[in-house]
């Protein structure tokens, strides 16, 4: 399913995934799988991560229970009147690396952004059976059409860096790191 008026053939190649993940769903995905995501996810980028980390330092509860959830690294552009959201493509993931293992320990099941993760994050993903996906960087207008609802969750003063809840419908992505420790970027490089 896609909300796009113009729907590239690409969407015919995707594996449907409902979110949050049902039992065994994330574990069943493999590096290189092309997926179409539908359902509920949470978002956060630099400032949200910094603040989540600070809350954990202070022994406080996080604004949402991230257990079993997908966290998408995005700072959307503002919605115009009549729109759900502005452009909403991924931001580069390595900036979140230092905060990620702690969130995976809390049960976060998947992260999504663009670009490779550190070895520490990869090890933590394998340990906690979590996955990492890449969304398509620089396709923010197209991806905005795959987001059907947006709710502000926390850190409103951080503007585009606030934490949101998105409802997705047919949002395309690629599995980069699977639960078995495979990395699709590495596989791609070794094939040349």
């Amino acid at each position, binding site marked *: 399913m896609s909300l*796009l*008026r*113009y729907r*590239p*053939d*690409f969407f015919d*190649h995707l594996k449907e995934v409902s979110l949050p993940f049902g039992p065994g769903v994330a574990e069943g995905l493999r590096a290189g799988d*092309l997926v179409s995501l539908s359902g509920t996810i949470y978002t956060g980028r*630099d*400032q949200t991560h910094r603040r989540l980390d600070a809350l954990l330092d202070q022994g406080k509860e996080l604004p949402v229970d991230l257990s079993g959830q997908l966290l998408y690294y*995005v*700072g*959307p*552009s*503002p*919605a*115009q009147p009549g*729109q759900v959201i*502005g*452009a*909403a*493509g991924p*931001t*580069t993931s*390595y900036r979140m690396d230092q905060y990620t293992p702690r969130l995976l320990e809390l049960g976060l099941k998947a992260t999504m952004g*663009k*670009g*490779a993760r550190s070895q520490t994050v990869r090890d933590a993903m394998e340990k906690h059976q979590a996955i990492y996906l*890449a969304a*398509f*960087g*620089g*396709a*923010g*207008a*197209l*991806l*905005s*059409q795959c987001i059907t609802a947006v709710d502000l969750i926390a850190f409103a003063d*951080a*503007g*585009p*860096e606030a934490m949101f809840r998105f409802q997705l419908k047919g949002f*395309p992505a*690629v599995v980069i790191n699977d639960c078995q420790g495979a990395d*699709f*970027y590495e596989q*791609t*490089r070794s*094939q*040349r």
Partner: protein
Amino acid sequence: MRTISSDEIIATVRDLVKAAGTDLEPDILDALVQARDEEVSPLARHVLELFIANADIASREKIPTCQDTGVAVLFVEIGQEVYVEGSLEDAIQEGVKQGYQDGFLRMSVCDPITRINTGTNTPAVIHYEMAAGDKIRVFMLPKGCGSENMSGLTMLPPSAGIGGMVDFVVQTVVDAGPNPCPPLLVGVGMGGSFEKAALLAKKSLQRPLGQAHGRQDIAQLEEEIKAKVNEQGMGVQGLGGNHTALAVHIESFPSHIASLPVAVNIQCHAHRYKTITI
């Protein structure tokens, strides 16, 4: 002397900023279409198709091409025979602010220490140059920082030669991996001084995409580096294929006898820019 009012500058910059946020220039679209047609990896071809669809949606629905609508970088060429009523700097900054607000573009500028967002996407980074004539030319580049963060600069010894320069550029692109959203426009500045090389690398992004440098030896270097980068196999978004770079642009300037500065300014495939002459 020709007089230009600050109001005209504010309105012109505002419209330029809004247009740059949502409408790719034809040279970028052509390059994406050509890359799709020549792409060897089926997955990369599909992703290039998504980018072409993205540009179409952005332009029709006036949604930003990419949510990172950048730090506003402007090159302003001021004719010597122009008199600006009021402050040119204030007028440009006001135009940038209005353009980001009216265009529903993302405010991405913050204090480097407190990380508190300025809320207006100003201050813009403005480079002024003097020129002959009675016009003002404005080049507006909303520079996303996924790609900007992957840029680099080195001060090579002359003994490193052109080979050393080529190696540095290729290595910078390889180290960037999928982070800067390939396929890329790789801007290179060589020669001059520390800051001149960086500025030349940024300026090279002004050239219509893929237009070769006027000097034949530099044009050959551009092709050589592009071929080397594309041999690495990272490809579109790091997902493989033969299009890590759409083009390499080099700008050169004479350097000190002791020095060979080389700067690489990386630009993503959502290479947005607009130019206007007032």
